[in-house]
């Protein structure tokens, strides 16, 4: 017996049909995964469930009877909870206050935070959430914040919990913890809707899987009767290559040399501690590690966005770049794909073409006597859009209205313009649809083949294993080992990432 049934849901927006005749249901005690590329219609379906949209056709049946849900609070009251991908937390409030928001209190005009804290501790113990109710949320790690989100739903006695890409920002360890928590919840008879496009997680966690494509259901399946490749094909609509081909190339001289790099982190601790490595031309050096072990600081220091501690040195094609600003480093042939696409990578309100020339807008190619030469810019950008298969209506479209994958393609296209000597690529495909990820991987390999020294930083172990020629594993700001790709396996790298140092062959 299903706790939730959505039958024949259709939702149209001006110019587009976001959901067409979608059937979806959840039973008590199961994890039902909703799989699909960005824009396939997952979030529209969930917004309908939470009353933010009303379906044009179809009906929602909750606990056996038809339900008209018109607002999120109504959904919450009915026992439907949601853990958003972008956390719905107020960082300046404490955990208890965040949980208590919107609840009526017996002690108005005050909220009985002691009682709330007490109850939070109870739920914590019951579900293994380990959440301290008295801490300000901004002090919490990402994983802890997510537990607060889950706590909010449990506190409101959610029977059905929607988890929207809950693992996007978690470390592998945190993912494991999360899955354990989720298992406990299903064991108690709750239903879970799991939204993700990380295929191995989907395979590991789901009881049933529904795949959406272009607003329609493209298939119902279970992990037992499918494979990652098959799921990817259902999502994209064609066969997808999940690991790229990596032809051998001749490596050249060291183009990026990092020596004894130490960097202070944001919280005043030493985020990077005496790190040294080289990247040669025609080589991809992958940095594997759990998020927050200094990767971000390494990338930003090389890019000139952070100042390292004295004694460090960073050489670009033999030149000491530490005294230089970002701009000068880029002029020397450095390219940088930042970790956070929308924050650091692209200017959302800029058009596609403006983002494509963000780095080299002032070169002679695009200007004549101080003014932009729009013909030249247009030609250049159209060519890049075509070459990198960016799906955009025009090159003047605001970048923020593109899908994540296409925004990332714009950034990659921009950074690979002018054939950089050294490329730092941080999380190049995080949150990117499979088709785009596949394409970006090909481009990174192609660039390596052209002689670029690439530093690839990724928390996706499959990506690091698939692309890198050598893999450096970081743990607590140090490099614990650098392993040749041929010797690397999921297992030995995973152990190193966890800080278990064993000499590898």
């Amino acid at each position, binding site marked *: 017996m299903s706790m939730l049934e959505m039958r024949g849901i259709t939702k*149209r*927006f*001006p*110019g*587009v*049909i*976001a959901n*067409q005749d979608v059937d979806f249901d959840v039973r008590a005690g199961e994890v039902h995964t909703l799989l699909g*590329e*960005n*824009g*396939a*219609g997952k*979030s*529209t379906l969930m917004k309908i469930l939470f009353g933010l949209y009303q379906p044009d056709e179809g009906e929602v049946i909750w606990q056996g009877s038809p339900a008209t849900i018109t607002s999120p609070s109504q959904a919450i009251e009915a026992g439907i909870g949601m853990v958003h991908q972008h956390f719905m937390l107020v960082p300046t409030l404490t955990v208890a206050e965040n949980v208590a928001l919107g609840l009526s209190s017996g002690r108005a005009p005050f909220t009985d935070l002691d009682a709330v804290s007490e109850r939070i501790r109870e739920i914590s113990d019951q579900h293994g959430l380990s959440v301290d109710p008295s801490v300000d949320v901004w002090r919490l790690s990402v994983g802890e914040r997510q537990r607060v989100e889950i706590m909010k739903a449990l506190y409101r006695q959610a029977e059905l919990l929607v988890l929207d890409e809950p693992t996007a920002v978690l470390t592998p360890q945190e993912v494991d913890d999360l899955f354990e928590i989720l298992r406990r919840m299903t064991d108690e008879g709750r239903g879970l809707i799991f939204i993700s496009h990380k295929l191995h997680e989907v395979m590991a966690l789901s009881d049933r899987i529904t795949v959406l494509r*272009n*607003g329609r259901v493209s298939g119902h399946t279970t992990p037992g009767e499918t494979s990652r490749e098959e799921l990817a094909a259902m999502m994209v609509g064609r066969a997808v290559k999940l690991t790229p081909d990596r032809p051998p190339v001749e490596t050249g001289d060291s183009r990026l040399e990092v020596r004894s790099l130490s960097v202070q982190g944001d919280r005043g601790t030493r985020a990077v501690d005496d790190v040294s490595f080289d990247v040669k031309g025609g080589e991809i050096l992958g940095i594997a590690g759990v998020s927050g072990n200094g990767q971000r600081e390494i990338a930003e220091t090389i*890019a*000139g*966005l952070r100042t390292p501690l004295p004694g460090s040195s960073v050489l670009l094609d033999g030149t000491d770049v530490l005294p230089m*600003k*970002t*701009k000068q*480093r*880029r002029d020397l042939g450095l390219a*940088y794909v*930042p970790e*956070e696409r929308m*924050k*650091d*990578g*692209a*200017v*959302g*309100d*800029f058009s596609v073409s*403006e983002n494509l020339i*963000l*780095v080299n*807008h*002032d070169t002679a190619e*695009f*200007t004549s006597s*101080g*003014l*932009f030469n729009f013909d030249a810019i247009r030609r250049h950008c159209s060519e890049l859009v075509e070459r990198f298969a960016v*799906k955009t*209506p025009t090159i003047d*479209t605001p970048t*923020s*209205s*593109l*899908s994540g994958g*296409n925004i990332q393609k714009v950034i990659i296209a921009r950074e690979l313009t002018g054939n950089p000597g050294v490329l730092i690529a941080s999380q190049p495909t995080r949150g990117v*649809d499979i088709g785009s990820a596949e394409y970006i991987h090909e481009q990174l390999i192609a660039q390596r083949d052209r002689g670029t020294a690439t530093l690839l930083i990724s928390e996706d172990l499959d990506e690091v294993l698939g692309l890198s020629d050598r893999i450096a594993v970081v743990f607590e700001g140090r490099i614990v080992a650098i392993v040749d790709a041929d010797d690397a396996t999921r297992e030995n790298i995973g152990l190193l990432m966890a800080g278990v140092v064993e000499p590898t062959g």
Partner: protein
Amino acid sequence: MKRLLGASIPLLAALIAFLFGAVMLLAIGASPWEGLKALLDGAFGSADRLAATAIKATPLVLVGAGITIAFRTSVVNIGGEGQIVAGALLSTSVALAVPDLPAIILVPVVLVAGLIGGAIVGAIPGALKAYASVNEILSTIMLNIVMVQLMNYLLRGPLIDPLEVEAGTRIPQTERLSDNATLPNIVPGVRLHLGVLIAVLAAIAVYVLLWRTPTGFRLRAVGHSPDAAKAAGINVKRNITTALALSGSLGGLAGAILVFGSEGQRMVTDGSSAGFTGSAGFNGIVAALFGGLHPLWTIPSSFLFGALLTGATNLQRVLQVPAPIAIAINGIVVIFVVSSGRLREKIDRMLEARAEFDDTPSTPETPAVVEGAQS
């Protein structure tokens, strides 16, 4: 059709605001019809009045265009008043120091002095924001106060007209400024001086700067996303300082034009900045926002407010309605027009939905674009 309706909403809002004004006129016993006539007559009634409107609009255009630079860089500039005063003081000092230069040299020199004066006072909060994280709303407001006092000090001390000291009247004003520095008229027989033309050209220059040059590109990049700009190698701090300096320089230019285009032919203070600027530093912000923070739209928008201000003087003269009514109506216009934006959006959306309904429904190939836009 749709566009027409969309565009007509702010106009409609302005109209409703004027209805309010009419009610206010009625309430104080004046005929709204006569009031409107006096207003229009005062603003557009003759070539000279039209010119007066244009001259009134001039500092608004300049301040407004400057504001667009700042706001497009995501920096708030409420320091227009202080920047106008700074430009006026520096250009006046220069004109007093070298009064005998020929007009062809002296006019550009005083205008440049105005630009520099404003730029300095603009750059201070810019640098404070960029390098010391001082909130620019606060520092620009405080600098307005500082500049007014500096003006008072200079005009009753170092820059005072020696004749005033001699006569013991001590009106805080400079001596009559050199005729060589006076902005020449551009239309024979009409009091329409060069400053009006300069303001329009400056607004166009701001448009070119923001959308046609690498410098403007960097400013806008910083405005939209300082993080992305920084990662792309753009110096965010320097650009924030630049934005406020440029913004201030246009205010300073307005100050110089106020001095050398004024019939007063000298700088004088009543102890407040409004006594010199006519609150152009604030009204310029209003004009810029009214013009959608687009430097070119700032020109007609400033003209509109200029007309309201000159018209109001006439309203008072003809109907004996106290001038503050114009300020009150001005405020109501702003409120109504700003508030109508959302309404306009809603109507736009409604019309779009209708248009979609009329078309044959189709599923485009990339719904990705839409879902991103909806959320």
